[in-house]
Structures are given as structure tokens and as C-alpha cells.
């Protein structure tokens, strides 16, 4: 699935205005109306609904429906009650740790694959992409028969005589959420890093080694600095996606490791408190947009989405 996305990544790097040039514009502006349908669609089905939710977040949900009176109570609840504050703190912590773990997992693989020879490189890339072509929900669900009481790991632990009864601490906690999230978002880290590593000029490495640098020094002083835009882009994407994770924590996390998205979902599906749910959504949206703007202020909006670019 995401291999196509990879092509999107590569293509956006060539967008003319990304490079600060404008497309040839000698024609009159008569064709501009062609943008209107898409803009109208996004305005009507993204901007207007978000604006409605913003208004709703200042109203109150009662047993009889929504009371349309301005109040800050929902936000007071969010920032006053430990349960909501700790949910957001946990969400940010899980997103940060997931980003770090994903980086540690993906970077060496990206480096190895980018330095592999033609045929091996293609095979490795195919096998890295393949799991991401399977369904998203299946990818999260996969870890249930791995980590559960009757799962593979417990089965092996018992078979090897390490434990006598199945252990329960493998799943329904924050650790399981990390496993699931790294599994779910690895490609978003791998791709930009791989791209920035793959397009480096190998002559730089040769030059460094000719000048007497050890491989380690070449890595720290040449390879790593040149790959930082990719690292930065990958980290922004993974952090942003992890902040909004829903499926993985719902399936693999216990009650104590639910994330902001799960709490928002339950406001709408269980508690039926739309006003508070709206305020929670607006808060999460502000956090994610802030992260994205922080990321794109350094690299540019499309560069963050499109991977590294120098």
C-alpha cells in the first residue's frame, strides 16, 4: 500500500514551487477556476466541520441534548482533571518514545539497505514494504496472537521451560503499545531516512576514508549529518501519527495505557458527551498541528510529507 505513497514522496520533491520557482505562467488566469471544486470540497467537508466542532467545544452536552450556551467548562475539565491531563501527557510520552524507538530500529536498516548492491537492495525494499501492503487493522491485530496468554511468545517461554504458566505482562500495557506502534509506523521513518542516505554521494565517504577517517568517524561526521533532513522528516511524521494513534492502543493497551484518540472515541461512542469530546478533539488537533508546523517550519510543508530534500 505504502509503496505508492513512496512514489508520492519522490514526486513531491520535484514540485516546482517547492524549489522556490513558479511554474510557467504565461497564460491568462482563466484556468484557475479548475481549483474551485477541490477547494470547495475541502472547505465544506473539512474547514466547516472543524469550525462546527470548535463551536461545539464551547457548548454543553446534557442528557437532553446539546445546550448552545458559551462556556469554558469543557476546557476547564480537560486542563483541571488529572484523568484528562494525564491522558495527554501519556499520549505525548508514548508518541515521543515510539518516535525514538522507530528511529533506532529504522536507521540502521536504512543505512544497510542504502549501501547494499542492486539486486539485494530491491529485494530488501520489497520485503520492507510488503507488511505495509497488508491491511492496517490486521497489522495491529497481528500482535494479539503473539503477545496474548495463548500467544506465540508465551507458548515458547513455556516450551523452553523459562516459565511454567503463561505470563500476563506481555500485553495490555504500554510496552505492547510500543511494539504495535513501531510495527505500524516503521515505514514512515524508514522511507525519508533511506532516501536521504541513498542519494548521498559515495565519493564523500571515499574521500573521508582516504583522508584517514575511521568508518565510525566517517559515519558521525559525514553520513549522519547528511541524513539529518530525512531523520527530521521521519520523526515529525511518526510523532504526528503516533499522537493520533487509535487502533493499536485500543487493541494492545490496557485501560491504563489508552491514548487521547481512544478517550475522544469513547466520548462519542460510550459517554455520548459530544461537547467534551469536541474540546478533547480540538486540543489534540492543536497539539498535532503545532508539531507539524514545528516540523515544517524547518523543512517546509511538503518536504516533511515528502521526505528529505536538500
Amino acid at each position, binding site marked *: 500500500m505504502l509503496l505508492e505513497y513512496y512514489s508520492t514522496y519522490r514526486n513531491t520533491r520535484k514540485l516546482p514551487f517547492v524549489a522556490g520557482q513558479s511554474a510557467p505562467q504565461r497564460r491568462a488566469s482563466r484556468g484557475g477556476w479548475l481549483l474551485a471544486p477541490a477547494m470547495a470540497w475541502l472547505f465544506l467537508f473539512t474547514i466547516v466541520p472543524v469550525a462546527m466542532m470548535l463551536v461545539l467545544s464551547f457548548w454543553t452536552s446534557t442528557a437532553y441534548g446539546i445546550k448552545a450556551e458559551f462556556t469554558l467548562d469543557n476546557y476547564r475539565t480537560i486542563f483541571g482533571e488529572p484523568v484528562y491531563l494525564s491522558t495527554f501527557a501519556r499520549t505525548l510520552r508514548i508518541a515521543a518514545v515510539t518516535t525514538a524507538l522507530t528511529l533506532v530500529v529504522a536507521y540502521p536498516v536504512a543505512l544497510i539497505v542504502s549501501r547494499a548492491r542492486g539486486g539485494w537492495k530491491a529485494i530488501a525494499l520489497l520485503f520492507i514494504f510488503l507488511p505495509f501492503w497488508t491491511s492496517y487493522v490486521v497489522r495491529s491485530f497481528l500482535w494479539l496472537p503473539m503477545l496474548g496468554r495463548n500467544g506465540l511468545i508465551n507458548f515458547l517461554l513455556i516450551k523452553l521451560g523459562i516459565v511454567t504458566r503463561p505470563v500476563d505482562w506481555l500485553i495490555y500495557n504500554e510496552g505492547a503499545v510500543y511494539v504495535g506502534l513501531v510495527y505500524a509506523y516503521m515505514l514512515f521513518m524508514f522511507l525519508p531516512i533511506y532516501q536521504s542516505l541513498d542519494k548521498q554521494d559515495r565519493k564523500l565517504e571515499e574521500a573521508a576514508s582516504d583522508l584517514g577517517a575511521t568508518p565510525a568517524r566517517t559515519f558521525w561526521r559525514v553520513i549522519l549529518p547528511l541524513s539529518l533532513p530525512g531523520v527530521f522528516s521521519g520523526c515529525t511524521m511518526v510523532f504526528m501519527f503516533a499522537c493520533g494513534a487509535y487502533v493499536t492502543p485500543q487493541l494492545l493497551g490496557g485501560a491504563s495505557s489508552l491514548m487521547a484518540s481512544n478517550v475522544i472515541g469513547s466520548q462519542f461512542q460510550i459517554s455520548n458527551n459530544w461537547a467534551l469530546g469536541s474540546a478533547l*478533539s480540538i486540543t489534540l488537533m492543536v497539539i498535532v498541528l503545532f508539531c507539524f508546523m514545528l516540523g515544517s517550519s524547518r523543512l517546509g510543508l511538503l518536504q516533511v510529507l515528502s521526505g528529505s530534500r536538500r
Partner: protein
Amino acid sequence: MTAARSPWAFARTVYLAAFFSFFYVPILTLFVLSFNDSPVMGFPFKTATTQWYGEAVSDGVLLRALINSVQLGLVSAAIGTALALSAAIGLRYRLPFKKGVIPLMVLPIILPGVVTGVVMLVFFGLSGVSTGLWPTTLIVHVSWVLPFAFLTLYPRIHGFDQTIEEAAMDLGARPTTVFLRIVFPLIRPAVLATFLFAFTLSFDEFVRTFFVIGSQRTVPVHLWILVTEQVAPFLPAVGVIIMLATLSVAAVGFFTMTRASAGRAPRAAQQ
């Protein structure tokens, strides 16, 4: 360097083995468990059976969900690609608010899935539109695939030689003729690839769909409901079926896409 090569090669092999195990052992486990003749999902493996595949498809809900997903994917990919194509062409002209176009365009990608889901639930709820496959889920899917379709199409629209168009216009062709006779034939492979890409995105979408689909099901929603409501022994079989379905949809999309990009922009296909 030569002395360090063999421990480095060893470490590299171990790392890659661990990495690929992490990604493939769970998939293989699911595959193995889908044939396990045991009433509980999990180990130990007793004897092989294919009965779970029969049970997975017997009630027809999975098939219904599959039909829903395919219909939804086709319609939303068609609308999304059309909107994206129109926008990509429009963006080539001088415009007053050009700088604001891209941020608005990528907004659906940046917004967290659940936020989009509940935002649309509220929107439809307050506008009195009842949730279901049509039109609520369709609208959400079009908004979801539109940015990706745009980001895929826009570079292709700019990629080809504009002097051809200018030549046609100099020879007196009207804009509509230029588009139908010159531009569209050139970008047709890219449009097809974008359509398939959009289809795969729609086919696999879950969180946004979940909040606006009401009581109907797409394939991912069906799996989610099975997983969260009952841990049935036939779950791995459903998982394998869905995995293979999604994989084949993605593979068709990918190969069309690489062929299209190989034809249009040879340099982009290398790397």
C-alpha cells in the same frame, strides 16, 4: 576497514535477521493459526483444518463488507481523482491565494484519524444527515484520498513538456481541445495510477470510516468489530483473507503505478 569488515558483516546480518523476524514472524503466526484446529485462538497447534475459512465466509457478512469496500473504493477514487486532477491543472494558472492551496490540501492527511472521524460525525449529526455507506462514508473517503491523489498527480501534470501545449494553442486549438487531445492522453497513465492508489487508500481506511459508517461495514470495520466484540477462533482466517485481499489490491495499484511512472518520468523510477 578490511579487518573490521567481518564483524561488521556479522552484526549487519544479525540486525537484518532480527528486523525481518520482527516484521514477518507475526504474519506467519497468524497464517499458521488460521489452520489450527482449536476452539481458542492461539497455541499449541493441534491439527490442521480449513474449517475456519469456511466459518469466516459462511455468514456472508465478510462478502457484504468486501462488496461495500470495493464500491466505496471505486466511487471515492473516481471523485477524488477527478477533483485532484482538476485542482492540479488549475494550480498551473496564476491565482491570488495560491500559497493557501497546499496547506488546505494536505489538512486531511495531518488531522488525526479519530479527530476527522468525530468531526465528521458531529458535522453529519448537526446537519441531520444519517450515517451509512452513502453518502457519509463516501464523503469522508473522498476527503481522505483527495490530498494523496493531488500530491501524486500534480508533479506529473507539471512533468511534461509544456511547449507541446503552447504549440497546439499557437495553432489555434481551444483550451478544451488542448486538454482532450494533448494533455489528457499524456497524463492518462498517471491518472489511472492515481485512481488505483486512491482505491487502495479507501479500501484500507478504518478510523475515519468507523465513526461515520453507522451500522454498515467495510472490510476493515468488519475485522475491527470481530476483534473487539468476540475473540472467535476464526479470527486469524478472517485476518489472512483480508490481508491477501488488501495485498492484491495494493499490488495491482503498485505495478500500474511503477509502469506509469516508468513511462512518464524514467528518472523517478530509478533510484
